[in-house]
């Protein structure tokens, strides 16, 4: 009498076959995904050099459109903005006035939490950035105040390279309080 717990040759082979097929399929899936996931992209490197700090006057805003970076030189130092809209990644453009049309239309605009500046009827025009895709707006210091953008644009690290030029690294996101004093 055969033990009922004993596995038949047929079902053993069937189970072995299915296990083998499943494992092979899983490996094939893993390989496929890894294959199309690039290890090297040959994109523009995140770190690049701009001009020497003396080129940027105090109070200036310089848009490096090809690098999608903005260099702001304030009295308390330099900082760099990654010019990528935090909504869906388009490139906002700089304008001397991004507020007066809203003020005139009666929209109340929040105060810039960092600079304390506020667009009012008396002083309607503030400089900043507008995104062409869905109309998000940012103050000059990259803080969002209008449109779908969920947060301010990222600030990225900058330092003075040994050759005296500004070295900006777009892959290093820094705190909003970060300033480079030269």
């Amino acid at each position, binding site marked *: 009498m055969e033990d009922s717990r004993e596995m038949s040759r047929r079902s053993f082979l069937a189970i072995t076959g299915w296990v083998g097929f499943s494992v092979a399929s899983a490996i094939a899936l893993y390989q496929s995904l890894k294959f199309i*996931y*690039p290890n090297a*992209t040959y*994109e523009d490197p995140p770190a690049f050099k701009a001009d020497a700090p003396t080129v940027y006057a105090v109070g200036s805003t310089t848009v490096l459109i090809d690098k999608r970076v903005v260099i702001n030189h304030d009295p308390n130092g330099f900082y760099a903005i990654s010019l990528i809209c935090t909504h869906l*990644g*388009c490139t906002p453009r700089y304008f001397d006035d991004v507020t007066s049309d809203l003020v005139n239309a009666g929209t109340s605009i929040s105060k810039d939490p960092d600079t304390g500046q506020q667009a009012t009827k008396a002083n309607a025009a503030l400089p900043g950035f507008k995104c062409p*895709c*869905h109309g998000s707006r940012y103050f000059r210091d990259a803080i969002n105040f209008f449109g779908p953008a969920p947060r301010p644009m990222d600030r990225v690290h900058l330092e003075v390279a040994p050759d005296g030029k500004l070295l900006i690294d777009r892959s290093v996101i820094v705190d909003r309080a970060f300033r480079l004093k030269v």
Partner: protein
Amino acid sequence: MTVIRAALDEMFAVIGQMVGSVFRHGLPLTDKIAARTALTNFFLHIHPVRVRRSWIRMSYTLCLGGLSFFLFIVLTVTGLFLMFYYVPSTSHAYQDMRDLQFVVTFGGVIRNMHRWAAHAMVITVWLHMARVFLTGSYKKPREFNWGVGTLLLLITLLLSFTGYLLPWDQLSIWAVTVGTNMAKYAPIAGPYTRYLLIGGRVVGDNALLRFYVLHVVGLPLAAFLLMVVHFWRVRKDGFSGGL
């Protein structure tokens, strides 16, 4: 003379055999011959042997599925023509698209046929789905085909989206930047999905090549296979049209 006649007879016999091998049933003069022709011909067998007039009433189907398929064929043929001039690299793509419009003879016709047929196909597939929904044609036994249809709708939209990048103008680049950034919002897998889709961190050469490959091979092939199943199921489940 008899030699020539014999040779001619022989030749006509061969030609007759060749023609007969293609047209096996003669002219479809009776319903029986017509039915047999439809039944044994690869291209005609997509048609049921018998169709009630009411099943294919224009006011019922609005021909939307057929129109979608017709547009798919137009897109395949015009797309094939466009491929002779289009190189999917960031240094060539835009120039090639402009050349197709202004340099290549009838290039504008082909490109515009492709473009308008693409817009039209998105519309007809949507309307086809709406029609099937409104006439309740998705109900048993056609639930499976409704499922296949939703996949075909998805593939149609993906074809539309991948094709949108190929002209490589500002509109394309930022539309795909926006579209793939939406994928980034997905929890956990989001950033990986975007990286996988565009083959990098910005919409560049890798993204263009990936979208091109999906647009001209991957998605059409998937669409074709699903269409085969879709039409087969229409035949097997029967037409939903009224009596």
